[in-house]
């Protein structure tokens, strides 16, 4: 009984829902503020992302007449549940070392949930704009999932076949050629997962008027926004654990690594135009695929010959 309560506390309060939401809203404020500074604007006040969500919560929820109501309403919750689990799991591993064998695979699965939920929700909304967005999101998921998994395989090879995140986080795979390549590709995949420029193709407001999200309003839209904010916590954290040696001894070095990834994401976001979907597919499959093929080969050779920097 107490164990169940304990787990519930982890999921709902810390390091689960409340903590992740607060952290995520803060992170999305950083994204907005830094973007604004890059663009010579003033940017929003600290609590703006929070106000936005609260305001949306109070707005009417409109469900299109022809929509599949149940799927349309459930999709955002499913997506958020996925990110919530992922975040709770990653933070528990970081803080309490409660890792288990194979948790990296669970994490990879949980990371796909938001995109799947987005595809479900938007295809249930019966809007032509959303259907274009859905098809784009699907193509995008198919493009970046393969490189992302390959990048993790590089890490698993580098760490001598470890499938345990706590064990992987003991090492720093990015300090080698293959690990660095894998890290850069994984960073771009995370960019796409977050739906940031140059991969905000499914939402592209000037083309399909925020595509996948076009029919969502009120609290349901707020849930999507919260989900995106929470992803801003979980995904960079995952990269830190897999590639950069986790939080290590001190909390501050860990946060430093997290901020580094966040800054890289923001910089990519602000120095690129949006890609077209066919260009994005080509980019992930051919260029990233090729880079990872090289990385995997290097990692195997390095592992076999005992050369760590390969």
């Amino acid at each position, binding site marked *: 009984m107490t164990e169940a309560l304990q787990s519930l506390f982890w999921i709902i309060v810390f390091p689960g829902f409340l903590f992740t939401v607060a952290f995520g809203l803060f992170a999305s404020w950083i994204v907005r503020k830094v973007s604004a500074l890059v663009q010579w604007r003033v940017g929003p006040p600290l609590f703006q992302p929070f106000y936005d969500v609260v305001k949306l919560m109070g707005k009417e929820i409109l469900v299109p007449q022809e929509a599949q109501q149940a799927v349309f309403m459930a999709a955002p919750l499913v997506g958020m549940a996925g990110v919530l689990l992922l975040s709770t799991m990653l933070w528990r591993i970081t803080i309490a070392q409660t890792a288990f064998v194979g948790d990296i695979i669970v994490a990879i699965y949980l990371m796909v949930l938001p995109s799947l939920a987005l595809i479900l929700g938007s295809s249930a909304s019966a809007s032509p704009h959303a259907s274009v967005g859905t098809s784009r999101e699907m193509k995008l998921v198919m493009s970046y999932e393969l490189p992302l998994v390959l990048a993790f395989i590089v890490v698993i090879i580098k760490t001598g076949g470890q499938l345990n995140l706590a064990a992987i986080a003991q090492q720093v795979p990015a300090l080698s050629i293959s690990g660095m390549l894998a890290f850069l590709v994984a960073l771009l995949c995370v960019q796409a997962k977050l739906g940031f420029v140059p991969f905000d193709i499914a939402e592209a407001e000037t083309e399909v008027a925020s595509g996948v999200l076009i029919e969502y309003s009120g609290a349901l839209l707020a849930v999507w926004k919260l989900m995106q904010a929470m992803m801003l916590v979980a995904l960079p954290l995952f990269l830190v654990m897999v590639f950069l040696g986790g939080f290590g001894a001190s909390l501050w070095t860990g946060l430093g690594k997290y901020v580094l990834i966040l800054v890289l994401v923001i910089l990519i976001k602000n*120095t690129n135009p949006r890609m077209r979907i066919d260009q994005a597919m080509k980019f992930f499959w051919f260029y990233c695929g090729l880079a990872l093929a090289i990385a995997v080969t290097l990692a195997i050779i390095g592992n076999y010959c005992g050369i760590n920097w390969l």
Partner: protein
Amino acid sequence: MNQEELNNKLAEIKDKLIAIEQPVDNKIWFTCEAENSYEINKFLFEEVPLRFVIATGIDSDDCFEVLYHYAYDETGCMVTLKAFIRDREKPEIESIAPFLPGAEWIEREIHDILGIDFRNHPDMRRLILSDDWPEGVYPLRKDAKKPVSWPDGEPSSRPTVDSPSRRTVPLSKPVLVVGPFHPLQEEMEFFQLTIDGEIVTDIDMRISYNHRGIEKISESLQFDQVPFLVSRICGICSASHPLAYVQAVEELAGIKPPERALYVRTIINELERIHSHVLWAGLAGHFIGYDTVFMWAWKYREPVLDLLEEITGNRNNYGNVKVGGCREDIPNELKPKILKDMDEIEKKMDMLIKAVTDDPILHARLKGVGVLSKEDAIKYAVTGPTARASGIAIDVRQDDPYAVYADLDWNVISQPEGDVFAKVVVRLLEVIEAIKIIRQAVKKIPEGPIAVEVKEIPAGEAVGCVEAPRGETFHYVRSDGGNRPVRHKVRAPSFVNVPSFKASCIGQHIADVTITLAAVDPCYSCTERLAVVDQYSNIIHDYDTLLRLSRERTAQIKKELGAPGLKMEDLQIG
């Protein structure tokens, strides 16, 4: 061909005409009967060949006139064909749209406003009147009643996708609707994209959500009031429209403005070009999701607006030209500041040009996208950067120089590719040329008065052309010797540039269509100037109605208060 050869060539069609007039060397006026107009138009467009500018429909008392304006850009010659339609009851003329797609819209417009029927027109739906405007009421006819009364019964509901002026697409095909309100565009317009996956297979458009009746209002204003009206056609081209109008009136009345005024006009128009092109570059960045370019470009544009404010008192709607000269002078103390600001802007533009031409993703997104071939560009009669990016090096400033462009050293920028990238390059390089022009003009500007006195505008007709940032702005003015124009036709460049979407968008990705739609820098407030209708409440907002409504309301309030004789004195206490 030089002017003489052109005259000889044009003389071949002489026997179909009633008269040929050539008041000045590069203005030729033909007159003919409606029956011969098709043949003559075909000759002018295909055999000479001339560039189609626009057509003007006029209700002269005993007949209708349709004026077809053509330009010969090598000598800057304007050829106008005036066709008389004698039958007032059932006015009809042969459509020229079958061989000249660029005339499709203007024939629809003339049909809307004057009720002239164009035989064999491919698509005679309404263009600028709202869908619920009553049949058989033509606002630009001289006998049009004000206010127009609706036919008996309920007015039709507000326009929907299925209303008659919109094409109905078979339901089996998915349709992506862009507009009337969409984050892509800052003004109201409606695009209906038929899509197959990500590929656009057909496009249909509907404009006319924002009429202000400029041409009709212009007929009720005095000659010196009109510049203020036409500068409000568009916030960005608010120097070009008045200048084109003023040049038409000056030609009509034979007025020569003083030298200094011409320099002031040149400087203000080039400042306008810089701010318009930089604004567009920012928007283009936004359309392809590059918001940093959006914000940076608009920041670079600010000093230009500040300069314009310092000279004319306004950041937009300068209201600085008048018939016979200018209203505000450029003070000599301001010259060093203008030169300094030009240096700053040039530095930043150099940086922007380098950033754009070196960015591989921009190349991937813009090259080979939305190509408008040279042939299509001629058929749709496009102008300005849209034409110049398709390898047609036309520029009114060069072909028929006005103000002081002929005395300054600058180049016409053109690119052969016709894609969006070429349009970006043309606009950015034109900013550099504009800076060059402003520098020379500021250094060479002579001392002297900035306006001459104008007394009378004689009867007659004339055209005025100005190279606005988006292309050639064309104004036609007819005077009967009174103090108001009897007809004032405005053709903004977007009116011919926008229909070219038909040629450049089909077969493109959705992602590319949006930037292609934006690449001609469409200006809907320029394109739509005519009827005055609030289509949602079905109220005609003309001045008389508003005045009447206002008076009725006052009377009603008085009645409610029960004080018919209420006077101001009664309200004062003590």
